[in-house]
């Protein structure tokens, strides 16, 4: 604080009433000589007057060469830097905050709704085949489950439709699903009516309905789910990158402020210029706020993706695989060999049993992935239980198949949809479904927690940055203005 001055010039000592903004018109202070440029001062009140134009030109030229002129330029540049830093910070922070808000309040719920459509459809299809297996009179449980699946799918389709952009592929997929849903339901009703009459035609209708579901509706629902997930990933990508432009501008602004401060000190021997200090403080606060706030938000969002979204995706996939496996298991008994597929040249197997095995493999893979993604006991426990249920399911399924292969259809049927005492596979399926539901709820909570924390970290950043930048710029301008006033 007691450095010797390097500059030779010293301004007049006491501070005049600088707040008024009125120049006090002292004598011309000695000009700095460091520039070495020919001095062409146009001081106020010089007697020989020329034309206004020439005078103006002189003043502009003088501005670049005289100290007050330079000060004005420095003030303008500092204000520009601080304000642009604030503007860019506000802009980038708003951008990220709104993307993070979309993640939490728009794209994730939509992705979840799309997953619900996918699951409800598979659920309805599975319930329809279960009810069918029970005979002409389907059970209340299976009917309720079927109706609930259809209702949920219809309701969530409306949500999805409301949030899709007109003309987008999602909108087309939703329209397609809206067209197919009543068609599917019609086929199921026909299947039921024929089954009630005791006609095998009912089974043919059920297979046709199932084909419509498996080949048209579920792929469409999967498309929708995937494109919503894409949108979610897009929002994550918009929310998480560091705001480098703002950070760089902040550093430049701080450097410029420091330089101006130092220049001021060199020339006036005054250590601190209050305006510049205020500007520097404001800029520093904004910069720190930006970096820390964004880092926290980023961590929260990253957490919500790694521990929420990824787990949710894997669990949704596993649940749908288990629904498909159950539907195919039922249909193996409904179709009774009506359709076969060639698994190897010359070797034919029941179409639905083959599909069952594929879905079961998907389920096993999904559960393995879910287990490795689960990051806490509460998330892992239901998945581990589901794995146990699945193994039991596989065992019982083997028994059902063995019974069916041995010609004991009734035993096979009991093993699939029978009462609890028969130890049916239906029990295992229900347990898998229940456990996956628990796991999904848990991960959904984790997601909301983490993403909410992330979003909170960005609260007020853009408004605060804008306000502080304006204050900082004002500080810089006032600081320079005060110096400037000493020349009037």
């Amino acid at each position, binding site marked *: 604080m007691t450095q010797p001055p390097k500059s030779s010039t010293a301004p007049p000592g006491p501070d005049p009433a600088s707040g008024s903004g009125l120049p006090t018109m002292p004598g011309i202070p000695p000009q700095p000589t460091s520039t070495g440029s020919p001095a062409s001062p146009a001081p106020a009140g010089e007697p020989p007057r020329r034309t206004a134009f020439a005078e103006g030109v002189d003043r502009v030229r003088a501005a670049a060469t005289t100290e007050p002129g330079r000060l004005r330029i420095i003030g303008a540049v500092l204000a520009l830097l601080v304000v642009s830093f604030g503007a860019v910070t506000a802009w980038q922070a708003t951008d990220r905050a709104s993307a993070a808000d979309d993640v939490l309040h728009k794209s994730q719920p939509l992705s979840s709704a799309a997953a619900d459509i996918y699951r409800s459809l598979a659920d309805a299809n599975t319930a329809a085949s279960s009810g069918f297996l029970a005979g002409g009179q389907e059970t209340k449980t299976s009917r309720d489950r079927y109706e609930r699946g259809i209702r949920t799918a219809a309701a969530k389709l409306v949500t999805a439709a409301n949030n899709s952009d007109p003309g987008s592929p999602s909108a087309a997929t939703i329209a397609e699903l809206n067209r197919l849903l009543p068609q599917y339901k019609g086929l199921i009703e026909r299947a039921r009516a024929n089954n009630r009459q005791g006609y095998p*035609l009912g089974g043919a209708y059920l297979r046709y309905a199932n084909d419509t579901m498996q080949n048209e509706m579920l792929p469409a629902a999967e498309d929708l789910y995937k494109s919503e997930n894409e949108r979610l990933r897009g929002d994550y990508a918009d929310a998480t990158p560091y705001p480098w432009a703002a950070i760089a501008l902040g550093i430049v602004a701080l450097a410029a402020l420091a330089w101006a401060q130092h220049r001021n000190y060199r020339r006036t021997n005054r250590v601190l210029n209050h305006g510049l200090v205020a500007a520097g403080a404001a800029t520093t606060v904004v910069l720190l706020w930006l970096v820390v706030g964004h880092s926290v938000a980023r961590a929260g969002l990253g957490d919500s993706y790694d521990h929420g979204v990824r787990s949710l995706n894997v669990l949704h996939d596993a649940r749908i695989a288990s629904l498909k496996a159950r539907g195919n298991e039922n249909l193996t008994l409904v179709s009774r060999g009506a359709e076969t597929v060639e698994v190897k040249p010359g070797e034919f197997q029941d179409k639905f049993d083959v599909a069952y095995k594929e879905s079961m493999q998907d389920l096993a893979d999904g559960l393995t992935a879910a287990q490795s993604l689960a990051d806490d006991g509460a998330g892992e426990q239901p998945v581990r239980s589901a794995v146990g249920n699945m193994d039991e399911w596989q065992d019982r399924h083997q028994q059902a198949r063995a019974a069916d292969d041995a010609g004991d259809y009734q035993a096979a049927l009991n093993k699939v949809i029978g009462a609890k005492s028969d130890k049916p596979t239906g029990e295992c399926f229900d347990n898998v479904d229940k456990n996956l539901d628990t796991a999904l709820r848990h991960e959904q909570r984790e997601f909301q927690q983490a993403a909410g924390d992330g979003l909170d970290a960005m609260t007020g950043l853009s408004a605060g940055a804008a306000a502080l930048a304006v204050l900082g710029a004002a500080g810089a301008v006032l600081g320079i203005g005060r110096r400037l006033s000493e020349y009037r």
Partner: protein
Amino acid sequence: MHARRLRASLKGWGGVGAMAVVCALAVAFALLLPHTRPTDDGSTGVGGQGVADGSHAKAEECKDPEDQSLSPSTAEGASIATIKKRGYVSVGVDQNSYRWGYRNPNSTAKDVELEGFDIDLARRIAEDLLGDADKIRFKAIPTNQRIPAVQSGQVDMVVRTMTINCDRLEQVAFSAPYFLTGQQVLAPTSSTIEGYDETLADQKICSAKGSTAYDKLDADRKAGRLPASTDISITVPNQLDCLVRLQLGQVDAVVTDGALAASQAAQDPTVELKGDRFTTEYYGVAMKKDADDLVRRVNRILEDYREDGGWKRSYGTWLSATLGSDSESATPPRPTYA
């Protein structure tokens, strides 16, 4: 003086004012910036595979395949001994052919039973062979698994609307024919289609994939015996699926075995068989190729079945309603043995 001062103050503050405006604009811009998102449409289809139904192979140049069976006898050999030792007959049947072999979903019996014309015959065979119609295990087998199931010994015999033809005679042994049928046209009662003739012009006809019916349609259309405008492109995995398509208005007529067409008609009072059968086919019981004792024994049982009126009773129960009580099919075919 005043003007200059103004200019001076503008120089000092104008820039700042401009910056403030820029700042305000930038904030507004950032706040109002529209969000654009990429939406990608990655489609992965879950495709079911088509099913080949290659059961009805085309008949080769061999004469009267239905007359190749062995003469009836009650002599017992290795095949019958195996069945007796096991204590039940294992029979491959259909569970989806109404009136032939199907499971009634409304059956109140504790054990859901199969029923139909083929099932009656299978039970009769078990009864005569083992003395008890219940010493039997039914195994539902797909159409294209009938021959492999017999060859591998999975089942002792197949009683499943199985046409006797020369191709199959190379792979399995058949009993004497027990039912006369042929390809027939099924269409809505109100349809203008009158039979297998020019009234099929501009109509869509459904047949089972790889079936005799499809082969016949294809050959006849190429040979000009069927109008060229007849659309035969719609094929389905199972003949019953044709009735689904017919009811949904996707096709105008179905071509399949008369016996199976009748079973379809029995499930829908608004459709009927149109015209006479245009091919002649016989159903037989398929058994392992070297099981001569079993073939002869089954032929013996079939003789008895015809003579004691069992056949006729079963026909009356299941088939006369749709096939008619005085049609060609209503009497059991007279066997000729090799």
